[in-house]
Structures are given as structure tokens and as C-alpha cells.
């Protein structure tokens, strides 16, 4: 595994306006508020967070589905945010995408061979039949089925088709936006194994976005925990689980029930106060202070400043929460 940096996101900010009622005026939602991520070749970075964390917005920003306000998204040294038109398009062949819902991420009126070949056609390739058959084989589907329509396949099979489409241009990076959340448990396992397999074979990097920590852990080397537009803790997956330092990470891990009754009985439940605040009106100072079980008095007043600091080699935690235990 080479240490070549494939993706480098620097201080990414994605804000959008949600105009509410006539009375409250325009609201600015700071969906992503200063994000930094590095992914090397052949590695998986897991991005975890709940609703409102901004993790899906990160994916959309990289895929050019939303406009980013500032920052850099460097794919192999080139900043995607500064590219346009055909230059952007030729760079886009290096990025693939897998989406959450296998039922709506494939055009119901297109044959699957056309769905899978579309990224190749965008890049100008004309003779795609052989490629499609190879891709179908690679994702574990019968290559004689290329003339069928999506509704003739099950959820798990459709997700495989989506994966075939994502790897068709031989990309260096694939953005996986909750790729298994909508699948049954037994199918989930098959898809996760496939993703791992393909990563080994093709040396692809994944940005794996999910809300389920146990799934993320299975695939990821490094994990970043997002809350309200910021990463609050980032480390390799072993460390995140063996030594979580941010109170939110601890609560997140504690909230996920492990399918093992003895372990669950020993677990002490950490209650978390309240609900996730609205992203259009995040708390001032540390965004987590409204739900922190033990905030310092500075924190409660909204006076603490956020920012990741390296508490141990390669383990970053937001500085204002390092002290709240």
C-alpha cells in the first residue's frame, strides 16, 4: 500500500441558504464548516455522523452536486473546486460513487448494461460491451443479464450494479454514501465483502460514509466522527474504539447495541441530553456543548474555541472537549 495521497480536503466549507418563512428571513445552514480529510491510495476513510452532521454534504461537494463556499478538494494534487467543463469531466473519471438507495439510484428505464457503461460513455469510450461483461463478473453477477432492467433484480443485486457502475472508469477514489444502510443484514455482509475484495484487487480508496459505526469499522482504516459540520475526533479505527476521547464519540459507541447479550448487560448506558440542534442555528462556541454530559463552565457560556489538536500520534480530538470527561 503506497502512501500516495489520493484525496486531500482542506478547510472545506459548504453553506446553503434555506429561506424559511417571510418573517424569519433567510437562514444560513452551515452544513460543512471547516473540514480536513486525507486519504491515501488503497485506504478507506470512514466518515461517521448522525443526521445534520454534514457527512452527506461532504460527499455531494466532492461529486460536484452542491457548490462549496471555500476550501480545497484536491484529487491527486488538482483542486476540483477550481476545475470546470471538460477539465472537470476528465478528472471526474477518477471518482466513482455508490449511493444509498438501490431502488432509486438506477434509472428504471435503462438496461443495466447502459447504466454501467454510462461513465465510460461520458469519457468518450464507444466500445463498451466487453467492459460491461467484465464488470458484471467482478461484482458477482451473471454477465448474461446485461440486457435486463433494474426492477428485475433484488436490492442487493441492484447495489452490485451500482458498484459496477462506480468502478467502470477504474477510478482512484469511490465515494460510498451509506451503501449498505438500506439493505438487509445478510445482504449487507455480501456487499461489504465485495467492497473489501474490490479494494484489494483494484487498489481503490474509499470515502465510506455511514451512521453505523460497526459497519464503518469493518471497512475503514481511519475514522472521522462528524457533528454539526465539523469533525470532532479522528483516528485510526482501532484507536477510536479502544480509546475514544470526545464525549460524543463515547456516546455514539455506547449507543450502538452489540449483538451479544452478556456484553450488553455489562454496559452502562450513557444518556445524552436533548436532540441534535438545527444546523441553521448551531450553538456558539463548542457545537456539542448543549448535549455534553460534563461541560466546563467556559464551554457552557459558549466561550470555548473549537479546533482539532493531536492528543497522540495520529489521534485528533476537538480541543474544547478534550477536558470535558
Amino acid at each position, binding site marked *: 500500500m503506497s502512501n500516495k495521497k489520493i484525496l486531500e480536503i482542506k478547510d472545506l466549507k459548504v453553506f446553503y441558504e434555506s429561506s424559511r418563512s417571510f418573517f424569519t428571513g433567510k437562514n444560513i445552514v452551515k452544513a460543512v464548516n471547516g473540514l480536513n480529510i486525507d486519504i491515501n491510495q488503497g485506504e478507506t476513510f470512514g466518515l461517521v455522523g448522525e443526521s445534520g452532521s454534514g457527512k452527506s454534504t461532504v460527499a455531494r461537494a466532492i461529486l460536484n*452536486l452542491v457548490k462549496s463556499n471555500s476550501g480545497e478538494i484536491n484529487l491527486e494534487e488538482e483542486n476540483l473546486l477550481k476545475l470546470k467543463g471538460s477539465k472537470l469531466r476528465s478528472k471526474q473519471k477518477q471518482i466513482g460513487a455508490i449511493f444509498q438507495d438501490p431502488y432509486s439510484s438506477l434509472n428504471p428505464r435503462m438496461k443495466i448494461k447502459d447504466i454501467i457503461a454510462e461513465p465510460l460513455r461520458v469519457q468518450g469510450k464507444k466500445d463498451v460491451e466487453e467492459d460491461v461483461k467484465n464488470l458484471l463478473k467482478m461484482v458477482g453477477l451473471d454477465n448474461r443479464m446485461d440486457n435486463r432492467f433494474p426492477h428485475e433484480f433484488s436490492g442487493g443485486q441492484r447495489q452490485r450494479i451500482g458498484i459496477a457502475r462506480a468502478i467502470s472508469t477504474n477510478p482512484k477514489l469511490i465515494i460510498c454514501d451509506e451503501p449498505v444502510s438500506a439493505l438487509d443484514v445478510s445482504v449487507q455482509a455480501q456487499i461489504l465483502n465485495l467492497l473489501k475484495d474490490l479494494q484489494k484487487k483494484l487498489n481503490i480508496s474509499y470515502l465510506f460514509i455511514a451512521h453505523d459505526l460497526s459497519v464503518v469499522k469493518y471497512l475503514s482504516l481511519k475514522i472521522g466522527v462528524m457533528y454539526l459540520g465539523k469533525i470532532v475526533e479522528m483516528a485510526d479505527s482501532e484507536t477510536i474504539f479502544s480509546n475514544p476521547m470526545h464525549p460524543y464519540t463515547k456516546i455514539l459507541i455506547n449507543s450502538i447495541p452489540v449483538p451479544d447479550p452478556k456484553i450488553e448487560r455489562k454496559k452502562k448506558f450513557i444518556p445524552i441530553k436533548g436532540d441534535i440542534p438545527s444546523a441553521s442555528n448551531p450553538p456558539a462556541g463548542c457545537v456539542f456543548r448543549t448535549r455534553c454530559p460534563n461541560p466546563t463552565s467556559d464551554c457552557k457560556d459558549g466561550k470555548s474555541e473549537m479546533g482539532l489538536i493531536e492528543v497522540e500520534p495520529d489521534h485528533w480530538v476537538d480541543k474544547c472537549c478534550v477536558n470535558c470527561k
Partner: protein
Amino acid sequence: MTNLLKNPLTFFSILILSILLILAIFPSQIAPMDPQKANYDALRSPPSRDHIMGTDYVGRDIASRVIYGVRTTLIIAFAAVILSKTIGFAWGLASGYFGGWFDLVTERIVEIMLSIPGLILALLLLAGLGSGKITVIIAIAVGGIAGTVRIIRSSVLSIKNMPYVEAAKAMGVHPIIIISRHIAPQCIAPLLVIASASLGGAIFTEATLSFLGLGITPNEPTWGSMMAVVAENYLRPLWWIAVFPGIALTVTIMAFNLIGDELRDRLDPKLKGEIKD
């Protein structure tokens, strides 16, 4: 296909439309007489064995005129609908997909156009453009554009946020190709529904225009103008001159409306079914 014929109304409508089609294509073979030939011996005669629908004020055979009227009616109606739906479809697609200023302006224009009754719009246009086949077609077509734009636009709005469209955007597919490959095909079903529903209306508008004397030429037989003649001669109204074209109009419009309903019933659930599965 076979269960299409099980519903008696649908069967009836398809039968009517088939007959109309035959009449439209082969009027000269079926019509008993020349529709323009004036027969001064049989002026204003009621239905009889020689003239099953009677003759008009200059002795022309009503039945033949009704039959020749089918072709005129169908051509104008289809042309108007095709014209208005094509423009409306393209405009709706662009407005829905690109949004922004173009969409805002489109919506305002659509609102204005929808607030004017189609007939008034057609009258105003004819007053400006003068009479004739082409101008009548345009006049009828203009009234049908706004509604189409609105329906197609709302279809586009719901489709353009679907993950498979986003997937195409993320790949770098050109916007025009996204519209033609991913969005337009899903809008064909609502387009067909609205097109079939408008045919009845287009036929009726044309008949009304002819009735008011603003239709095509006074000699070419159209059902509306045939009925108008009776109104002019109210002192001696001869019922058969108006009633037979009137029946033809009613039956034709009804058949198209029923087919339109059937089409909507079949296409709507299928449309929902395919996206949701």
C-alpha cells in the same frame, strides 16, 4: 392488450375512433355524394332515402359533409395538440431542470396564459393572424401550451432530485443528455395523458371557432360551420342540418376523452410502480 377491450366503454371508444380513422382516410369512397355539389332540386330536404341526413340550404348532402368533416376535424385537432405539446414539453423540461430566472419568468408567463380562457386566446390570435388552416391550428395550439408546461415542469422537479439523476451529474454527464436520457423518458407518461385529454378540447375549440365563423374557409365542411348556418337562419331552423354534425362532434369528443381516461388509468399506477418498486 386484450383486457383493454373488456371494458365496454373503452371498446366503444376504440370502435368509434377506428371508424373515424377510416372515414378520415377514405372519405371519397364512403361518402355517398360530393360534399360541395349543390343540388337545387333538393334544397332543405329532411332526412330521406336519397339523403339519409337531409340536405342543407344549398342542397348539399349533409351526410357527405359530415364524413368529409371528419378528416378536417382530426387533422386540425391532432396538429394543434402535437404543436402545443411539443413546445410545452420542451419548455417544461428546460424550465424545470434549469430553474433560476428562466423558470421564474416561465412561471409568470404560464400564470398569465392560464388566466385567459383558451377560446378567447384563440379568438384574439385569429383576429390578428386572419383565418386559414394554419392560423387556426396555431390559435388552438397556443391555448394548450401553458398547462403542459406546468405539468411537465412539476414532473421534472420531482425527478431531478432522484439519486439516479444525481449519479449521472456526478459522472459529468452533459445537462442536455441528462434531460434527454434520464428525465424526459419519465415525463412521457404524463405527456401522453395530457395530450389525449386535450384532443377533445381541441376538437371542441375548432368547432366553436367555425361556428363563430372564424374557422378555416367557409366552403370546406366543418361541423362547427355547418351548425352555424342553422343559427343564422333562425327564422326557419332545419333541425337536421345542426343535429347530425352535433352528434358527430359529441361522439368524437367523447371517444377521445374516454381513451384519454383509460390511458391515464393505465399509465399512472405504472409510473408510480416503476419508481417505487
